């Protein structure tokens, strides 16, 4: 009663839940006890079996069962992060994708004259020098006359060269002089330097402006590619200096491009299209871009219910050097996706009806840890320069642009501008072309690390297209069709339309089935655990309880037994040294149930209660009580240690 309440509680806890060591006195006793009493199946057999061979077999079996369990469970763990694929098809009202349409030619040639006349003149001159070709004699002559006076600064920047003698000597176009090649030679068309035995190879030289001895020669097996590539470099140079507003005006307006529009059985017009300026394709128009917040959807498949447009392709106004094909380019994409029209566009022929049947597939991958893909692109250390949702293409382009700005100091024309950068042009960055080519080379060879940084997007939508072409307008309907379309075009157009100026395009859903391919975790934790349980149970009839038992017996109990043994040894040795002359071993032995005098009234052996007379307090040992050393509960061990005595008396 004088004790503090805290102490009282601890005392009570000590009393009710006494901390005691394991009952087993030795390790082998403990093991034996464990084997006899464990819930696992094999161990008991080891102890119970008679004969060495049998016991050995049982040990072997038990061990192999343990091995099997470990192996199988390891397999289960390793296969935990696997995914199963499910495909669902749902028939439903489908959102119509965005359809971006561009004229293949980016800017009206007629309106670009102010900017490109010099370049075109020099290109023509180059054609004449190399191939003895000239179109429109008078023009060329004039340009030849001007040739010497203007000084041809385009050729000064990037000289066009003709290679002879297996690329050993070159003829400079401008000066006409031969000289030896210095520096490395890069082939655009083939990776082999001596591509066949064509000895006139055309190429151009790019030099490091800071260090004029650093030059790279780019050669092409065909002059067509060389001239186009050379033209394109200069073209980008020029276009980079023109502000966006001007460029938009120079390109085609929606009225120019779209003659008629029909969607889902209803008429539509240019207000359903959003302008989108593409650096290489000029003004493109996106149908159903979702810009005003609404995305059109179709609830009926078939060609009548999709998008039908007639495009006006003014073939006469094409830039002859920049583009060599006629028609339009379209791309079907999601509203959030950036249309990479130069990479994955579909070309549309003129004087034909192109019917594009779509089939919609949506896919979804599991992100980490199942696969290495990204959900939003936020975890990728590349800034998204496009104002659209992440895709691998966007990442690669952004990555390249960033590398370009870092190493060349200006941005490449075909991709969006990063903050604070501006497009390369020869005036400000005289070195950019060399730098760009070098960088592009690296990029293609995966030396920039972009391909390593950029990851796939986890979910993507895909419209599989089936494209087929019919003649349009048909021979008999051509006449009225062209007349009416000319009227549609209005008075702005003075000439009569030609059918090669028109392209008819139909984009529609073949069916309204959405195929959804998704990855699901093949395993959940629940299933993993049940598989574990199945394995444990199958081989050894074991469960988590067994595992706890093992921990209890093999770690806690064994350890404490070893500790106790050591402690007792130490104590014995200490005591023995102290009191050598008083052997009190008998005292110890007389304790416990083996002591014939010992009367344990608490033992619930009812026979003593019922039949045996109570032993009197006599100093002499009478008939000893039956020598049931096992009558006491919980005494599985032959030897008893003093501190384990009262365990089990409850």
């Amino acid at each position: 009663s004088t004790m503090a309440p805290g102490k009282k509680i601890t005392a009570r806890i000590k009393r009710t839940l006494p901390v005691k060591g394991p009952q087993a006195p030795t390790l082998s006793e403990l093991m034996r006890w464990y084997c006899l009493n464990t819930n696992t199946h094999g161990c008991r057999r080891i102890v119970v079996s008679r004969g060495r061979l049998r016991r050995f077999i049982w040990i072997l079996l038990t061990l192999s069962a343990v091995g099997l369990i470990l192996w199988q469970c390891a397999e289960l763990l390793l296969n935990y992060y696997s995914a199963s694929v499910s495909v669902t098809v749902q028939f439903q009202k489908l959102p119509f994708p965005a359809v971006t349409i561009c004229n293949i030619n980016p800017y009206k040639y007629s309106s670009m004259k102010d900017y490109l006349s010099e370049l075109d003149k020099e290109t023509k001159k180059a054609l004449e020098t190399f191939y003895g070709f000239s179109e429109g004699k008078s023009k060329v002559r004039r340009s030849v006359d001007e040739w010497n006076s203007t000084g041809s600064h385009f050729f000064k920047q990037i000289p066009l060269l003709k290679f002879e003698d297996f690329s050993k000597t070159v003829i400079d176009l401008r000066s006409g002089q031969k000289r030896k090649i210095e520096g490395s030679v890069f082939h655009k068309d083939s990776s082999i330097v001596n591509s066949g035995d064509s000895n006139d190879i055309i190429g151009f030289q790019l030099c490091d402006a800071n260090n004029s001895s650093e030059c790279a020669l780019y050669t092409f097996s065909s002059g067509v590619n060389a001239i186009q590539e050379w033209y394109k470099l200069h073209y980008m140079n020029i276009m980079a200096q023109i502000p966006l507003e001007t460029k938009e005006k120079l390109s085609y307006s929606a009225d120019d491009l779209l003659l008629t529009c029909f969607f889902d059985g209803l008429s539509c017009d240019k207000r359903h299209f959003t302008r989108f300026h593409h650096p290489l394709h000029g003004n493109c128009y996106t149908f159903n871009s979702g810009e005003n917040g609404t995305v059109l959807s179709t609830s009926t498949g078939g060609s009548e219910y999709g998008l039908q447009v007639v495009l006006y392709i003014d073939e006469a106004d094409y830039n002859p050097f920049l583009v060599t094909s006629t028609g339009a380019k379209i791309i079907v994409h999601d509203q959030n996706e950036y249309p990479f029209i130069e990479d994955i566009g579909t070309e549309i022929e003129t004087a034909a009806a192109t019917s594009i049947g779509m089939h919609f597939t949506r896919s979804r991958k599991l992100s980490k840890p199942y696969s290495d893909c990204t959900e939003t692109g936020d975890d990728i250390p590349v800034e998204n320069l496009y104002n659209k949702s992440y895709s691998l293409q966007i990442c690669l382009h952004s990555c390249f642009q960033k590398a370009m700005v870092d190493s060349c100091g200006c941005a490449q024309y075909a991709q969006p501008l990063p903050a604070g950068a501006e497009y390369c042009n020869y005036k400000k960055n005289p070195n950019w072309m060399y730098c760009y080519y070098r960088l592009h080379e690296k990029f293609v060879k995966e030396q920039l690390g972009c391909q390593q940084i950029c990851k796939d997007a986890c979910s993507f939508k895909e419209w599989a297209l089936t494209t087929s072409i019919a003649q349009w307008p048909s021979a008999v309907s051509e006449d009225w069709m062209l007349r009416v379309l000319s009227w549609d075009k209005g008075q702005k157009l003075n000439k009569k339309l030609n059918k090669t100026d028109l392209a008819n395009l139909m984009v529609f859903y073949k069916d309204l089935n959405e195929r959804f391919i998704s990855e699901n975790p093949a395993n959940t934790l629940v299933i993993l655990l049940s598989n574990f349980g199945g394995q444990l149970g199958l081989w050894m009839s074991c469960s988590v309880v067994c595992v706890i038992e093992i921990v209890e017996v093999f770690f806690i109990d064994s350890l404490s037994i070893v500790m106790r043994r050591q402690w007792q040894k130490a104590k014995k040795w200490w005591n023995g040294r102290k009191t050598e002359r008083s052997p009190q071993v008998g005292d110890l032995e007389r304790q416990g149930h083996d002591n014939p005098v010992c009367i344990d009234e608490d033992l619930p052996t009812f026979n003593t209660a019922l039949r045996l007379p109570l032993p009197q307090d006599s100093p002499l040992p009478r008939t000893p009580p039956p020598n049931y050393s096992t009558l006491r509960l919980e005494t599985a061990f032959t030897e008893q240690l003093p501190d384990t005595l009262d365990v089990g008396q409850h």
Partner: protein
Amino acid sequence: MNLKKYFIRALHRLQKGPGYTYKELLVWYCDNTNTHGPKRIIKEGPKKKLIWFFLTLLFASLVFWQWGILINTYLSYNVTSSLSIGFKTMKFPAVTVCNANPFKYSEVKHLLKELDRLIEAALERILQPTPSNSSENISPPLDLELWHQIPLVLIDEHDKDNPIILDIFESNQGAMGNQSTVGNETIAGNETIAGNETSADNQTTVDYEATCLLCVPQCSHQGSDNCTYRNFTSAAQAVTEWYILQSTSILSKVPLQERIRMGYQAEDMILACLYGAEPCNYKNFTQIYHPDHGNCYIFNWGMDEEALNSSNPGAEFGLKLILDISQQDYIPYLSSAAGARLMLHQQKSFPFLKDQGIYAMAGTETSIGVLVDELERMGYPYSDCTMNGSDVPVKNLYSQYNTSYSIQACLRSCFQNHMSEICGCGHYMFPLPEGVNYCNNEDNPGWAYCYSSLRSSIKYRQICIDSCKETCNDTQYKMTISMADWPSEASEDWIFHILSYERDMSTNVTLDRNGIIKLNIYFQEYNYRTISESAATTIVWLLSSLGGQFGFWMGGSVLCLIEFGEIIIDSLWITIINVISWCKGLKQKRAQARYPDAPPTVSELVEAHTNLGFQHEDVGALPRVEGLPPEPGTPPPNYDSLRVQPHDVLGPDSDTE
């Protein structure tokens, strides 16, 4: 007998009172159950008891929680998909070929004469707003009957609030005054796409803001009270749509046999056919009348004969066709695109060319490599699909062609059913339900209005989408299409000669580049890609997972559950017996005990029985007490209870037998 014995025993038990207590029962259960946890609860010291009690409880609840998850997973009926790709001998797809133009113009000219003259005149008016006297003088008076049913009008929207409607054939402007007010109300129609027509652009296209509109009066053709103007931003489209509406009405009155006769005949259209190494001809094709494209011909439809197999990939083993579409005989205003329409589909299915068909261009050779993309799904309850369409609440109108169910057939049937209910007649493009006729302007003057409002009605579309189900086995033919010019300039001459000779027995060339098409249809190197579903969770899976969970946490099995159930039954027994003895106790409160000494209770017996001490002992294990003489002591007690016996036999009631 057994039953009687059982009842007697039960009666005795009830009379005697409880042999067990709950505690004894629980201890017995814990000690003897095969489940792993409970044994530990009773075996060791209080600390361990407590720990084991909580562990057992925790594991038991874990097991139940995980079982819940497993059962839930099972009931969600997931599927796993397996994909197989390869080449095998497969049925060659049915190939439907049609001409893009439904009828030969030379055959239908007499029917469409009036209409064509009307449209020519209308175009004349549209293109040259100031009427030129010359054209009107030459032509005989136009039949304006057709015109008044569905007139073409021009709407001038320079003044947004007060658009002017110009009927093309009404020359005086004054008459438009009252009509413009009518148009005023309906012009901002509820069409989704051309919704705010009047809002955005106005100044930019001032000189040609005149929009072509289609007016469809519903009640009568004079007082157009209820008009819907269908806007077209392009005259070309307006004219085409108008022409289609009018010609549909005219052609719907023509009997089917006549329509088939007016279309392209097989022998004219299919000039050459080769399947693998086997020659075939137009007789191998099944004729079907398709409302969009007139006569269509289906190869390998599998209706009467076995479907053909193809066991080799490559163009040499596929179908090669040469078709003639005779472009000069096209109806000029009906279809502006020229070519053959073709489609690959399954045997015994109806070809829906507008949805799945592709074009083949004249003067070219079109090669189509086919990959069969199959999706085999499991039906209910795994996914909501239909095996044969019998459980779809829409009457399949295409069953009259003996074709199998498809989602397209269902949607069209659904539309036609709505149309016949609401408009009272069927649309010409779809098969007819029983007892309904095709719409035409004479019998159903308002049909065009009814049709176009139904067609653009989102509500009815949604009803159809909701009621139709896709088929469980979805087969698609993925096509890789490539084209080349054909015939080449060098071979042109002899090819045309031979084909002309074969067709018309004439030595002159009657064909030209604009009419001739070569088709190659063949299997690709891998001709099938099959995605098949199988149930992810079967009952076997469920049981093994349940067992796995139970085994993992507690080492239990079904037998353990039965044990547990047994204990519950036992405890119920105890309760019953307790209650009965308590009642008895109330009655015989003062009754003398029958026995002077109380019999040993079961608990005592149980304790003795479960006492580990009563086990076989090794003799050597007994520690001998040295020094004590081997006096004869008390004989060992006669413990009959030491014998291991089942409890029931030991019980106090066992002596009644």
